[in-house]
């Protein structure tokens, strides 16, 4: 089975606007997380969708699903998120296995709730790639030159731009492989490795690249939010 895992565990500390986590802010007429969830629900290959939400916001998320979701509502499951991104993914994996058992044929398409501009093409390409390569990451070619600095003051390196990509989501995994890779990490590594694909990369597990879109932006800051609102012709609420 192919599962969707929408990561909505953030508490909005970076947005610095109101107290509401950014994934619950309206983009146009609906909360961002709902736009993201609807895109996943309109992908027939994704059979069940799990949303990882901070424990304090689980009830709010349930209310939003009740209010806004009109299709395949029975396929939506809300899971309490963990302390960080990967812990939230693992909570979702636990919930998947609780509901559908363990299987080598389980795959999960994980996605940031604050990337509501994801396209069905990107989601489908992730499904195709994970089914044939077991792990994939969505990226776009870097347009800016990437500069490496160890201390934040001086340049340590300027890698060749044509080899640089910017990571987006979805990131997709064969569930059992993801579990094995995560369990092989020590507690310290778990705390440092905030990117799920990096868990694979540091253990020399190949990760396939899927082409993203510049429009699949992550809405993290106030200016991102203003850009996103302008894209859909919505009102900006500061």
């Amino acid at each position, binding site marked *: 089975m192919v599962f969707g895992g929408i990561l909505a565990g953030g508490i909005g500390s970076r947005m610095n606007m109101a107290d509401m986590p950014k994934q619950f802010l309206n*983009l*146009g*007429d*609906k909360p961002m997380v709902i*736009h993201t969830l*609807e*895109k996943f629900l*309109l992908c*027939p290959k994704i059979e069940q969708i799990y949303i990882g939400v901070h424990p304090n916001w689980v009830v709010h998320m349930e209310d939003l699903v009740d209010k806004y979701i*009109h*299709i*395949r509502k029975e396929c939506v499951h809300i899971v309490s998120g963990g302390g960080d991104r990967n812990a939230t993914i693992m909570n979702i994996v636990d919930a998947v296995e609780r509901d559908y058992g363990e299987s080598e044929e389980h795959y999960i398409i994980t996605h940031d709730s604050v990337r*509501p*501009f994801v*396209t*069905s*093409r990107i989601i*489908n390409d992730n499904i195709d790639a994970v089914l044939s390569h077991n792990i994939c990451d969505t990226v776009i070619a870097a347009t800016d030159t990437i500069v490496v600095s160890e201390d934040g003051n001086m340049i340590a390196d300027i890698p060749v731009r044509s080899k640089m990509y910017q990571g987006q989501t979805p990131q997709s995994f064969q569930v059992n492989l993801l579990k094995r890779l995560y369990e092989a990490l020590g507690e310290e590594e778990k705390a440092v490795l905030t990117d799920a694909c990096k868990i694979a990369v540091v253990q020399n597990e190949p990760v396939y690249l899927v082409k993203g879109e510049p*429009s699949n932006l992550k809405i993290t800051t106030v200016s991102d939010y203003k850009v996103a609102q302008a*894209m*859909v*012709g*919505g009102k900006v609420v500061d």
Partner: protein
Amino acid sequence: MINYVYQLVAPGTFSVKYEEAQFGDQVIIKPRYMSICHADQRYYTGQRERSILDRKLPMALIHECCGEVLFDPAGKLKSGEEVVLIPNVPGEHSDIILENYAKGSGFLSSGRDGFLREFISLPKDRLVRHDGIPQKLASITEFVSVAAHSIRRFDSISHGIRNRIGVWGDGSLSFIVANLLKQAYPGSEVIVIGKNPGKLSYFTFADGTVLREELPASFEIDHAFECCGGDGSYYAIEDIIKHINPQGTVMLMGVSENRVAVNTRDVLEKGLAVIGSSRSGRADFEQAVSWMKNERFQRRLDMIIFEDEKVSSVEDIHRVFRMDRNTPFKTVFEWGL
């Protein structure tokens, strides 16, 4: 859900409109296969008048499309059902005036967004199931329905002497019109008149093909279908009026950007019925689907369809439009956006 709408903003230039789509009472469809029409190409290449481009763009092109039902709020259509999409937006209802001519009616890809979109929502009556017809072929159902519509009107208007019917044009439209005429009137002789011997050689099912320049003075037909459009309309209409028998019916189907001079003296003298036929309605789509279930007809349609690579980016949309200019008949493609 934020829907991607791939709009033509100026000839040769696409831009994405991010549209906040509402889940209302309409059916949500994922487009699967599309086909390019000359009308799309005229917008893409900027052949329409500047004032028309200014008025209609930005706009998503393409009105020939089939897709998969994702969700029907009324539960009448099942998820996964394959359907053809009807681009007509009905206007004033009338028991006499057909839906594609009714006042207030509209057309997707003419002043309103066509089907170049990530997802499409339409009322259920704008969808026709096409089970049994491969998607590649189903994508041109709208085109077939236009031919079906002209034959339906012809049938109700023309007199019953139909020994010989002439079809002017050697393109996709005349290929389908001539094909359907053979199916609708097996006892009639269907003669195709064209300019390009290579293209005419595809019309093996017709009772005869003639190069326009070689039309004998003695050539006679009872009725005619004009499927040329553009500058060819003038010459085709001129020929038709010359060779048609008295009280024949002339079905005009080709679109021309310029006004076309008509020899009205002979139209009057012969008592001809000149009928404009454009677009189609639900009944014609249903008729087209019914005809397209015939495997023999499917194999014939396959001959005039060029399937380009799947479209997975805006660059790919440009590619299929460029490709279409170099293919003799219809260009179709899988929609992967």
